[in-house]
């Protein structure tokens, strides 16, 4: 069998609102070439399962991650395949799935793709697994914040822990609803759903929690979209450890306020979070918004933090739990709200991270005691980071397993995106799962088609075994 060319790879990444599509893997990976709404239309003739791509009653095949209308979803797939793949080409299709899809739906989709769309190569992978490919973490905790729900999935050695995953019923809509609920007591007056959504996406809506260490670069990656230019560098790790976060924020604010007095006179020159009010541009109107623009994410953050604790407790091995805490992948468009990611991390840190002053017993010794404090094998010499000694902010070495310390996490951070992709340097957080899909597609379809551990289904194997052949590569 001929090898699959990069130009024949079709990636379909469906969500409840939009579907990202890309045909052909470019030399250097880029953000998705096309994003279309995940909507098709019931054909005006009213016949059942008769759809149209352009006119009629709109149908959303995916709601909260679940496929609620399978024929409509299949129709969407067919429209995508027909639109993007030229006649005569033999596409290799990678479809990103969700833990909410049922086995029967996955078999039906497989059947549809081979029998109706005549695709020669096909595979399905969980979106959480694809996400983790962008971060190149074999063990990680993927938190996908969606519109109506958030999926929290531990990935252990590249295997998604479906049975460990937790779904929290909170997402972007939760924030919108909270804004509406709070808006009647704000200067803005009661906002409609669309207005609240516009505010949420406006950039003047941000999470600024004085109690936490937001606006920090503590939790791993530098967030280029949200860097406070005048803040300078400061070691939040140290500040948190010293328990002086509040004083620090206060003094920091004061310094900045003084700077402001000297340098700037007009309030409109101040950064958004130092102003009492700001303006939301909506439909040609200007709506003045007060402190409303700093609230409304608490419910979402709390629910995610609860869910993460439960999901991590489902992981059997304690070292794997620490690995998950050390590689948290936070994705989803809601997280483009400035400060939200940091707020979630700060809340996780405050709730779960083990910070105490006692360190004595945690230092592994070289004396041969039978206790489990004794470092064993390759782990020997890897000292437990000692909270309070100033070492907390130092990343633990790769592959580090915390043998001498039963309780985790002693350390947590956001996973870093792989550094090999210059096009993604200024990536947006909502696109990283798609980068993962591109990397995965390269790996999956790049392998020889005859390889016994093939990760995709060929038409040949489909013709022999039928739809169930998908279980050889998925799940």
């Amino acid at each position: 069998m001929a090898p699959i060319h990069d130009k024949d790879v079709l990636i379909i990444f469906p969500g409840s609102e939009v579907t990202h599509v890309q045909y052909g893997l470019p030399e250097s990976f880029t953000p998705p070439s096309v994003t279309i709404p995940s909507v098709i239309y019931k054909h005006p003739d009213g016949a059942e399962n008769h759809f149209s791509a352009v006119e009629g009653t709109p149908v959303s095949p995916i709601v909260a991650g679940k496929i609620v209308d399978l024929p409509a979803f299949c129709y969407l797939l067919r429209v995508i395949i027909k639109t993007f793949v030229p006649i005569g080409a033999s596409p290799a299709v990678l479809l990103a799935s969700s833990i909410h899809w049922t086995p029967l739906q996955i078999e039906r989709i497989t059947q549809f793709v081979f029998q109706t769309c005549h695709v020669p190569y096909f595979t399905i992978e969980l979106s959480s697994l694809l996400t983790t490919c962008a971060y190149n973490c074999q063990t990680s905790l993927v938190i996908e914040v969606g519109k109506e729900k958030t999926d929290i999935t531990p990935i252990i050695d590249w295997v998604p822990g479906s049975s460990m995953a937790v779904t929290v019923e909170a997402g972007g809509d939760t924030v919108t609803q909270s804004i509406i609920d709070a808006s009647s007591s704000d200067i803005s007056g009661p906002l409609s759903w669309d207005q609240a959504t516009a505010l949420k996406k406006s950039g003047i809506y941000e999470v600024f929690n004085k109690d936490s260490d937001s606006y920090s670069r503590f939790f791993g990656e530098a967030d280029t979209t949200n860097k406070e230019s005048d803040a300078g560098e400061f070691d939040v790790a140290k500040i948190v450890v010293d328990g002086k976060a509040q004083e620090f924020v206060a003094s920091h604010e004061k310094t900045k306020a003084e700077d402001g007095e000297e340098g700037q006179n007009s309030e409109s020159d101040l950064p958004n979070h130092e102003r009492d009010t700001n303006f939301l541009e909506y439909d040609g109107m200007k709506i003045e918004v007060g402190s409303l623009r700093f609230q409304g994410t608490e419910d979402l953050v709390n629910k995610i933090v609860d869910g993460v604790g439960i999901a991590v407790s489902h992981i059997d091995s304690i070292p794997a739990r620490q690995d998950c805490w050390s590689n948290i992948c936070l994705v989803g468009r809601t997280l483009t709200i400035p400060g939200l990611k940091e707020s979630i991390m700060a809340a996780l840190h405050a709730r779960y991270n083990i910070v105490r002053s006692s360190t004595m017993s945690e230092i592994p010794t070289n004396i041969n005691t039978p206790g489990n404090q004794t470092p064993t094998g390759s782990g020997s010499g890897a000292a437990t980071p000692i909270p309070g000694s100033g070492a907390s902010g130092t990343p633990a070495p790769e592959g580090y397993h915390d043998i001498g310390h039963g309780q985790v996490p002693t350390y947590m951070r956001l996973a870093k995106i792989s550094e090999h992709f210059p096009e993604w340097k200024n990536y947006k957080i909502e696109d990283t799962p798609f980068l993962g899909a591109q990397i995965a597609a390269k790996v999956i379809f790049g392998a020889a088609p005859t390889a016994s551990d093939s990760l995709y289904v060929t038409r040949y194997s489909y013709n022999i075994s039928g739809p169930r052949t998908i279980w050889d590569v998925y799940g």
Partner: protein
Amino acid sequence: MSSPAPAVYGGDEISAIVLDPGSQWTRAGFAGEDSPKAVVPTDYIVHDPPFIGDDYIHVPRSGAEVANPMADGFVSDWDGAVKIWDYAVTKKLGVSFSDHPLLMTEPAWTSTADRKKAVEIAFEELQVPAFYLARSSVCACFAAGKATALVLDVGHKQMSATPVYDGLILKKSSFHNGLGGDFLSKQIAAKLAAQDITVTPYCLVSRKAVQLDPFQAADSAVVKSAADLGLTESFLNLEKERVIHEFKESVCQVMEVPYNEGGAETRPPRPFEFPDGYNINVTTDRFTTSEALFNPKGYSAIDVPKDTVGAAKMVYDSIMSCDVDARANLAYNIVITGGTSLVQGFTERVQQELFGLLPGLKVRIYAAGNSSERKYGGWIGGSVLSSLGTFHQMWISKKEYEEAGSSIVEKRCK
């Protein structure tokens, strides 16, 4: 990206559902797979409809009571149990009971009435096309790749020792008692209470105290009042159990020899931090709590029935009550399974004690090193069993049930 499962003849093609209902977790998944796809807490919140599953039960709700449909290792409240199974299979696995044969596990000591009831529920209520009731100890035996073994299963509510010979249990030589994970939790709770330590669950902590010295009061923690939130005792216990479970996982250890204070004191203490930031250095209590699994009379902080024996003694009793010809084979094939056997040092201690108790026999212990294989031993064995090609003839079909009634279970499922 999982690699394809090795091709096995036949059986897996009917894609049976394997259901392993435990006291703490209900496990469900497809036959032929290596781990259950759905692992659901067996505790649920009483409500109409009930709140089931980890995504829902831990949400603090005023007045919500927690219930558990299991007692003595098997179902006592069928309504509640069926709802949990339905959630695991319909919601989590995404399939319908009526489309797949169902293999369910049961302990060695279920009554005939309960077994008949299980068959009735399966065919009448769940509408399964075929059914089989498998002994969980037999399943654990298969999961270890054996047909003959002495299975020590340490679960949440009970510990059992069951001899399995050529795939059949020897009922008269199987024993069980209440020494399990829940028992260990109670030991820990009692030790903490004796030191005036309050376990504050996560749901009540708004902000924990940081940088405390060991045993320093967590006064700076911001804690909500359970009474203000209207939380019930049963809910608080469920949430405290999560903390105690963590204590079990990270602090508890079984000493390799019977507990002695001198030996325990030389071990380095292990720190433990509670959700409110309060932290302690656990010294000898690390060992005394779990010692009760081996010496309940000497170390249990709660009352236990007079005839309760420890883990190794139970294995010994079970082996010695078997026919003398079988003993050597059983002692040489001891399978340890169940989540509570993951307490550090557990298997080593069983081995040590058995060396002393059975000096004339060769003792060999088999315990899966992988913790999920140990936790899900019963389920995995059920998965292996029901995907065997030769298992086809074992299923009780709906037609057979309609002809013979529920008593067919006694003939078919030994």
